[in-house]
């Protein structure tokens, strides 16, 4: 029910967004160094209705790793798990509200559209232990990931107060999130300084030198 109403909302606002300006968000650390690959999303504090962000999120498995490492989607989006390797993966997430588990044969895809809850979905592969991927499900169409310059452009939403949230699975903060309120009627350029550390991101590589087979 709720997703249906959001869909309607997104459809209504689309022309507005199309012509609207972008809001530029810059995420830096306390040394003003750009933080890339940070999930940033805006959540309106006022009663602002926003149109549904109709897009398909692709969570690939390539070269025995999740590509991208972090994906973000609006609740209700369709997710395509695409196995680009020549080996079977067994993708699963055993905790939280969005538990799932399935195998994808080499070169095949699996579409999943039944995530019911917002929140973080930590994913692993039961065959390749080191593979690690995150899918953040948000309840807003205003989301994205910073580029290598820590920059993210989002279409300017209607003016009002928003909660700007920065998330990263290794962000050393409560719920791995940093919050900041912004008034979008005034600013179009937002810079967020993250004081919290980004913890070490474990590399999606086989820790053991498992060399006796090249294709596994």
């Amino acid at each position, binding site marked *: 029910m709720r997703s249906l109403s959001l869909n309607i909302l997104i459809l209504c606002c689309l022309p507005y967004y199309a012509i609207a300006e972008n809001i530029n968000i810059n995420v830096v650390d306390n040394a003003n160094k750009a933080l890339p690959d940070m999930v940033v999303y805006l959540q309106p504090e006022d009663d602002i209705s926003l149109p549904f962000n109709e897009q398909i999120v692709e969570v690939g498995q390539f070269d025995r790793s*999740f590509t991208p490492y972090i994906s973000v989607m609006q609740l209700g989006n369709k997710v395509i798990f695409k196995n680009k390797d020549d080996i079977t993966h067994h993708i*699963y*997430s*055993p*905790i*939280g509200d969005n538990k799932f*588990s399935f195998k994808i044969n080499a070169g095949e895809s699996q579409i999943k559209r039944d995530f019911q809850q917002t929140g973080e979905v*930590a*994913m*692993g*592969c*039961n065959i390749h*232990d*080191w*593979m*690690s*991927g*995150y899918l953040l499900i948000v309840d807003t169409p205003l989301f994205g990931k910073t580029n290598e310059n820590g920059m993210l452009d989002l279409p300017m939403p209607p003016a009002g107060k928003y909660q700007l949230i920065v998330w990263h*699975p*290794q962000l050393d903060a409560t719920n791995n999130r940093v919050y900041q309120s912004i008034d979008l009627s005034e600013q179009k350029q937002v810079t967020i300084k993250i004081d919290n550390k980004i913890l070490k*991101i*474990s590399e*999606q590589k086989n820790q053991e030198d498992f060399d006796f087979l090249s294709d596994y």
Partner: protein
Amino acid sequence: MKSLQTKIFLFFVLLLLLVQAIALWTIVEGNKSQERQEITNRLSTAKTIFNAQFNSRRDYLTAFAETAAKDYGIKQVFEDELRSLLVAMNNHRKRIDADLAMAISAKGMVTAQLVLGKNQAGESKVKQGSEREQAFRFPHWLESQEQSHLYVLGDSVYQISLSPMNVGAKTIGWLAFGFEINQELAQHFLDITQLHTDFAIKVGDEWRLIASSNATAQLDFTKQVVNGETPNDYIAIGHLVDEAGQLQLALAMYGLRADIVAVLQEQWWQFLILTFITLLLSLSVAYIIAASITKPVKQLVKQAKIVASGDYHQTVNVNDSSELGQLANEFNAMQSAVLSREKAITHRANHDPLTDLPNRSVLKTALQNLAERKQAFTVFHLNLSRLKDVNETLGHDVGDWLIKAAALRLSTLDEFQLLCHIGADEFVLLAEINEHSSSELLVSRIHQVLEDNCEYQGINLQLQVRIGIASVPEHCHDTKSVLQMADTALHHSHKVSQLVQVYHQGLDVNSVERLNLINDLKDAIIDDQLELHFQPKLDLSTGIVTHVEALVRWRHPTLGMVPPDNFIHIAEQTGQINALTHWVFINSLKQYKAWCEVGLNISVAVNISAENLKSPDFYEFICQSVDKHQVPADKVTLEVTESAVVDDPEAAIAILQQFKDRGMRISIDDYGTGYSSLAQLKQLPVHELKIDKSFVQRLCEDEDDRIIVRSTIELAHNMGLSVVAEGIEDEFALNWLAKNKCELAQGYFISRPKPAKELTTWLLEKKVYAFE
């Protein structure tokens, strides 16, 4: 007694004891250090084993926890219902028989806990722990890299390992598995190390004993060991496992020292017994060695004693090639050397070195043997004449050679039982007396072998001997005396210039009787035992007796008449000669006066001794006596032997000169037997010479004597001296002397010496001699 054997044995004993002591000490020390080493090794090994096992458990737990945390099955049910999670966890727990299994959520809550405990029946039973739904007490462990920890739960302590459960890089929780540190573990260590193991923990400040293999374990004891102390009678090692300062697990491993060293102790006893046996054996061997070394030494000692006692004929036999055997051989060699040397010494002691003939000591022994056998025998004492001359003129070598020649010739005589060389030129021959031999025959044999002259480098040497002879039992009975007698006889033969003299009592001026005479002589003068005899001197020109010679006689109360030769010599030697001469002189003067009274005018001659001349008041006495008795000095003749003047010619000449000056007549007695030095005669203030009777006695048959006497008379006359001849025993001599102008004659042919009374009668009756 400290014999050599004892010494050697003692030495061995000490040496062996020392060696054994050193060995014992070494082994004791070795054992001690071995024991220490063994204990140290054992303890450190036990500690190492503990650490290894403890770490191995830890690593095992860690590996297992990691494996379990990756299990997809458990991940799937991790957030699901509790029962599924508990079953899954228990399945894992059973695989390693862990005592504790825990699941901790990402939020740090203990979501599931399984504890292996025991029910009342003692069976192992798994039940849920008490900490479910509680926050994990050590949240910092979750962040830590360190996965292994000590975990206290209730009364139990666990060794646990935590492992995160990841989904990719996302940690969704932790799994922990643990082994309890319990009595079973302690027992396990006891089994491996043979050491009791106590476990204690320190929570806060309080120590708690949690497990032990020892049923009677005490916390205090454990703490003591952990603090590094070793309780008495124990070996022990302590160890602390720190748990990040919060918790300390202490380990004490220990055992009774006695149990550990029991094996060593047993070896000890064996060793001591072995040592004792070895010592006994080696002491026995030492005793045998000592005995075997000293046995030959003892033999040598015994032999030395035998040799010392004078027995040289036993040899010592040591069957031993060692130094002792050599010593025994040397000993035997020495013994024979000593024997031969002793023989040589004995030979030298009994033989003359020059002639190698038996010497005086052999002679004595031989005499003794003869005396013991009561064998009659004769001793011939020989003296080589003129050896002194040979020595002086030709040297002692020739003298010795001559003695040897004589010895050689004498030794060819087999009529004698023994030939001895008893002095430089003296030999003694012994002959047993039997009916076939006589002294005369034997003497002639002696002379016979010595008859031929010896030729020494072209010089003819005559071997002439004088012989003194004495016999047992003819002359005496003891062997000592017979030698003395032979010697006396020999001596006498010198005096009388004879070649052979058989002993007779008259010769013996040194007899025991003579000693008695010495004492008796004093009394003789006082007791009037002396008598004066007078021998007339015939005036050959007138044929009447004009002179007499006074001769003293001693009528001994017990010995009878003693010849003057015997006692005058004694008187001279004992200082009584003056008294004697005085007596003779006074009585001669008295007799002169007596004769004067009967109308006889007879000059009196008195013999004067050399001793008289030495007496300082002799001259005074003579003069006073002459004056006193009113005798004309020229009626007194003093007869002095030539030898009396020899000792001190100047003094003698002086006193004689005095007498001459006084008017008395001086006569040289025994002229021709002494030196008859014409030089001295020239000096002597004398009136007459008295030719010795030896020249006169044989005037009849001996042409030489006639020449001598005639020459002497002529010589005397030429020197203004008158001549007296004594020893006239036949008419020829008397006539011959008268014809040759000899002034006075004296002798048996005229008259023997007679007592004054008898002579007075003879003088008064005597006709005048008429000469042819």
